[in-house]
């Protein structure tokens, strides 16, 4: 699923090997229990014959630290679709699965998800070169100092603004991302309900096991057949646990792309912001140019306070006008610079973003197709188990 194409992955092997419970005091000085995950780094060279593999460098990190890293990546690489983290809280659960964050199954699935996150970042052509990411993997650092700079842009992403000429491609992408989000959410909901029901069907067959066993006690010729058929019913009922556990992997694969849609949306929003800033700068420049023109020709086309006051209190002197003109021209030059910069920024953003978007699309198609194939393989395995159990049961019934 993850390609080893980057320099980082050629150097290092990354694992999230274990999870452990810890207790400690949190920021408001209250006792809390949390889970930490062990990150293991090994050099990626093949071990020579007879040699022992090098001991890994390890460090422990908790989920919130991963969150900080991701926020940093989001801010630093606004044009990149940053891989998502596994879910904070268990969602789309079917009844047997616990929604408790400390539940061992949830922790295990989160461990796998965190490892997947690190591998995704490590295999990204841009993100894998990031210094902070490398430090995250290797140094037990004081986590606060790296991430505390809050980019004002991140805050402004939640602000409302309208772009005059939205880029059609980004609009289409945002639309797609929304649709994908909707449809995967729906799929996960259906899956949870189906899992619940299927669990019920299999488990009720366990009652056959119990009743057949009791019944066999009162029968002579039918006894053996009933008894052994009952055992197969028990086997059938028990088999659903493994089947559904495997299906969780499929659900997790879908969830990753559900969360990816948020990252895609985020890139679109960042583009909108840059576009908006460009438009604002252009608008500002146009306004200033107009002002200059008015000042130069003496006509007042646009309403301005200066124009108003000059009408009321008389025209200003020649020096005043010239001084104002000069200031304005300076401002215009600065404005042109700004527009040029913003334009370049925007174009660069669009270029790099679309590179990443294309990369993402390919990755998504490949990963999801593999996930669907995986799902089919799971179904096949389930069918084979079913065939076996019921064939065995039929043999037993024959002996009745």
């Amino acid at each position: 699923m993850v390609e080893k194409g980057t320099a980082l992955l050629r150097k290092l092997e990354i694992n999230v090997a274990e999870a452990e419970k810890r207790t400690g005091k949190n920021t408001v000085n209250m006792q809390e229990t949390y889970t930490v995950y062990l990150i293991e780094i090994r050099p990626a060279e093949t071990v020579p014959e007879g040699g022992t593999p090098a001991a890994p460098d390890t460090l422990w990190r908790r989920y919130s630290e991963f969150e900080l890293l991701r926020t940093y990546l989001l801010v630093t690489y606004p044009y990149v679709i940053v891989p998502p983290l596994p879910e904070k809280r268990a969602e789309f659960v079917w009844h047997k699965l616990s929604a408790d964050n400390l539940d061992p199954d949830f922790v295990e699935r989160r461990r796998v998800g965190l490892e997947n996150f690190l591998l995704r970042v490590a295999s990204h052509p841009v993100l894998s070169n990031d210094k902070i990411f490398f430090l995250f993997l290797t140094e037990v650092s004081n986590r606060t100092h790296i991430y505390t700079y809050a980019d004002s842009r991140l805050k402004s992403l939640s602000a409302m603004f309208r772009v005059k000429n939205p880029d059609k491609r980004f609009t289409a992408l945002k639309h797609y991302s929304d649709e994908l989000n909707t449809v995967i959410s729906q799929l996960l909901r259906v899956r949870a309900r189906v899992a619940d029901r299927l669990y019920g069907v299999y488990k009720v067959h366990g009652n056959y096991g119990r009743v057949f066993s009791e019944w066999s006690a009162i029968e002579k010729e039918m006894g053996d057949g009933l008894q052994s058929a009952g055992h197969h019913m028990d086997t059938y009922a028990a088999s659903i646990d493994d089947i559904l556990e495997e299906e969780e992997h499929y659900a997790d694969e879908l969830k990753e792309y559900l969360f990816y849609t948020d990252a895609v949306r985020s890139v679109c929003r960042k583009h909108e912001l840059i576009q908006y800033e460009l438009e604002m700068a252009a608008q500002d420049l146009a306004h200033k140019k107009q002002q200059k023109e008015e000042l130069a020709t003496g006509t007042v086309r646009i309403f301005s306070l200066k124009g108003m006051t000059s009408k009321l209190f008389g025209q200003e002197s020649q020096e005043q006008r010239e001084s104002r003109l000069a200031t304005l021209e300076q401002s215009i030059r600065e404005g042109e610079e700004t527009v040029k910069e913003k334009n370049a920024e925007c174009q660069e953003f669009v270029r790099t973003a679309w590179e990443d978007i294309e990369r993402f699309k390919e990755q998504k198609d490949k990963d999801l197709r593999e996930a669907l194939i995986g799902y089919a393989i799971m179904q096949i395995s389930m069918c084979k188990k079913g065939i076996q159990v019921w064939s065995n049961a039929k043999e037993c019934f024959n002996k009745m």
Partner: protein
Amino acid sequence: MSGQTVAADLSGHMLGLDEDEDLEVFTKNSSLADGSPMPNSPGSMVNQYRLEEDEEDQLGAYTKDIFVTVDNPESNVTAIETFIMYRVVTKTTRSEFDSSEYEVRRRYQDFLWLRSRLEENHPTLIVHPLPEKFVMKSMVERFNDDFIETRRKALHRFLNKISEHPILSYSQHFKVFLTAQDLVSQKKQGPGFLSRMGETVRAVANSVRGLRSRPEEFTVMQDYMENFSNKICSVDKVTQRIIKEQREYLDELKQYSPTYTQWAESEEELSQPLKAIASCVERCSKETEEQIHHLSEVLVPTLHEYVLCAETVKAVMRRRDNIQAEFEAKNEALVSRKVDQEALQEEVDGLADRVELANNALRGDWSRWQNGMRTDLRSAFISTAEKNVEHYEKCLAVWESFLLSQREELSQEQVEDAS
């Protein structure tokens, strides 16, 4: 039945005769206390009930010479009521029948009449139960198609069970049921309501008295039936529960396909595999529907029949107990009283014979019934297991064809990429 003719005035049952047995047919019409004709000598009656241990022999000795079908339910509307009439077709080579083919129309009430006659005449034979009068719990409409079809099948099975019974199939009532165009006039013959009432009162009185000593074999039988009844009811309940869970599962499963299809619409590369998955899930849904249907059509009716059978056998055992109790009561009176011994003695002897007759009847029919039960239940369970295997095999094929299509897609893409 070659070479044997039946006296026309025999209103009771025909004896199940083995061709080697030189058995007389009794025409003397003295009745037993419960109204069925009494044979002259119990000894000769014993021989008529063969305890066949070897099932194959039994099948060999009994070749089917009467075929009955129940079909074609039709609604009949009169001024007072609406009811369903079923067509009953009989094809037979038996010489007691004037023709080789009969077609009559019967309603549920008629079946009830037949069964109660059979039970009256053979109190300790196990007469297959009829489908229930009205299924309260599911509040099914009486004229609902599914209900009618289920009932028709059960009625068909009932008549077939009777026609396969070595004694019951020769019952005059059975013949009348199969052949008479006008059953109403036939129904009016036979022991009246009052005599049946009398029997019930006697039965209650006797049961209150209790049995002095039930033969061990019948106690064993009773214990077994108690347990069997519990177990078969449990199996029936579990099966109903499975059907319920399967239906709920199917409802949820049906949501998958539209979701995958919707997703396919916003994708390019993924559109094909998503549509393929949608189609796979839809086919699996259909297979699940069939699986549920099979359970309802095959396993549930069989289990249900044997739930009713268990009650039938328990009733048979109660009747046997009553017959014994009646005898014991009179016998005690005989022993204690000094006067009128001769008349009482004859009555007691008659009752003793009746007890032996009843016991032998039950004994014979018991092993027959057990074999039938084993065969029927085994076959229903096997059929269910086979259907489940078939279900999984079909779903397996569906998913494997998906994998194949993906591999083809992939290799095609690789060819395209290379060029």
